[in-house]
């Protein structure tokens, strides 16, 4: 694989910068007596709960937005998605609310979004219709 051929978009660069900054920030906090892994968990936890679920929806269905609007909507939408996903999982499917299940519930919400995007992009029902005709 030729690594030179891999294109780094601004978005990928931003994510890489975030990961590097998260590690550097945790390292600096560790120098001042904090637990490195705990700080890292806080940073990634905040992003995972407060940003990522909404970001996946926005990235899938609102491609034309500029980065500020994308960020704004991602944050707001994450709150809505986390609240609804956890409530539905617990009240409807009786899934207990624990750190692991919360992680998986949010992950499932993101996977469902990606599947919805895949389905809406490929529109398999159209090909089925054609075959039927």
């Amino acid at each position, binding site marked *: 694989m030729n690594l030179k051929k891999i294109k780094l978009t*601004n978005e990928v660069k931003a994510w890489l910068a975030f990961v590097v900054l998260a590690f550097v920030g945790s390292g600096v906090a560790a120098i001042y007596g904090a637990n490195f892994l*705990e700080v890292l*968990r*806080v940073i990634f*936890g*905040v992003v*995972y*709960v*407060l940003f990522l679920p909404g970001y996946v*929806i926005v990235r899938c*269905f609102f491609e034309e937005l*500029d*980065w*500020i*609007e994308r*960020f*704004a*909507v991602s*944050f*707001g*939408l994450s*709150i*809505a*998605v*986390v*609240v*609804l996903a*956890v*409530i539905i999982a*617990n*009240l409807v499917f*009786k899934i*207990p*609310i*624990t*750190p692991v299940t*919360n*992680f998986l519930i*949010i992950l499932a919400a993101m996977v469902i979004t990606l599947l919805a995007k895949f389905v809406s992009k490929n529109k398999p029902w159209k090909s089925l219709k054609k075959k039927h005709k």
Partner: protein
Amino acid sequence: MNWKTTIPLVLILSCVFLVNLSQHIASGLPIHVDAWIEVSLADAITKQRSIPSTEPFSHTKLNDPIGNPVFQAAFSELTGLNLLHGATLLPALLNTILALLLYAVSMQLFNNKHTALAVAGFTPLILSQITMLGPFYLVNLCFGMVLVLLYFWFILRQEFGLAMLTFIAIGVTHRSTMVFALIATVLYFLFNKKLWNKLLYLGMMVVLSIIVFGAISGYGLLLSILREFMMFGKSWPYFQYINMLGSLFLALLALGLYLIILNEPKARRFLVPLLGFMALDMFLYWSWRGFFLVYRRLISFIFLLTPFFVGYAVAAVAARFKRYSYLVLVLLLIVLMPLAIKQNIRAITPLQVYITNEEHELFTNFGKANPGVAVLTDHLEAYALPYYNLTPISLSPGHGVNSSFYNEVGLCYMAGDLDCIAGFLNRTGFSYLYVGRNISRAYLKPTYTAAGKTIYWFNKSIYQKIYNTE
């Protein structure tokens, strides 16, 4: 990436975040009883590992929306921060998200980055007054404000599917926000002829809000609100919007309103009728007439609309300077944003600290040593006790709790009448008492002291000997 917008916006967001955080970080504890209620509910969720059907205070039916505590519980579990640290960090994060969403909604309304920047800059004008709460406190309204802006963004883009999803999230998070969102939608549909073919969607919203409202609070509450709406029952005014906003921002709001009516067709159809409705609401409020529950909570949303008008006015003034418009806008923001922050900080004082750091230490240690024990405290402090594994006795009746001993002992406690309190303890069989000061009575024995604060144990036999009662 447009650095001309990005750099000032990042500075605005940092400012909003740090100002809010600085207010919370001093104590590191929730500073209002409503925030303590949400923390206690979130704590109950994490302990039970499920959404409880009863509240943890008097163990009667839970009538509060659960969105906020569910989010707090998930946030706490995934970040590893305890709920109290979360309660310090989350208001600042939510306020910053509010600023970002004000920017995003402004882009949809005005399609101008400078105006959107100015609107985001006036986020501090979303004032937090103690009885009306607001984004300074970690309460349901704070989540509601974030979600309703997101909802507006979807409505303005006519993304009705995601708007409906957000509306349901609003419904399970904050009732008054749901009513506000519904009113905003009805007015937008009414003044926007192009949307009249989407009336089915509006009908679905009405049905959905009735279902969600009834499922959370019961239909009795809905009927009582409707009855109060018809009857115009009296309610006491809690704040004066004009005094709180200040004459400078009021003048800018009026200018913004005038300019939006003249120049912005999309915003004119959306913001102006909504502001008109809120103004009518405030007029009824000032004349002490209006439906109580939703009504006085609804008025907080006039603060959410304020930045749009003030920001538009400031951006329009800056635009008059043509070549230097950007520079003038930045200068105006540098001058006016601190004034807006000052208005906000003035509005949130005096802070209502219900649990001090010393009391936190006392209750933490006592709760660990005596889990589940009932302690008689102040009727507002009592809402923090479930977090410390303690059982509250006298609870404020104004916070959705159905039964407590407030009527029997609340007034004795507030008057500091120890004999009256002792009489209550003698009658009911409760043993532990915390009054926040050192007391000396033969029948009250200091049983646990931490950080200079003491919990007393009531000696029933000595009391009965002294007063010759059984």
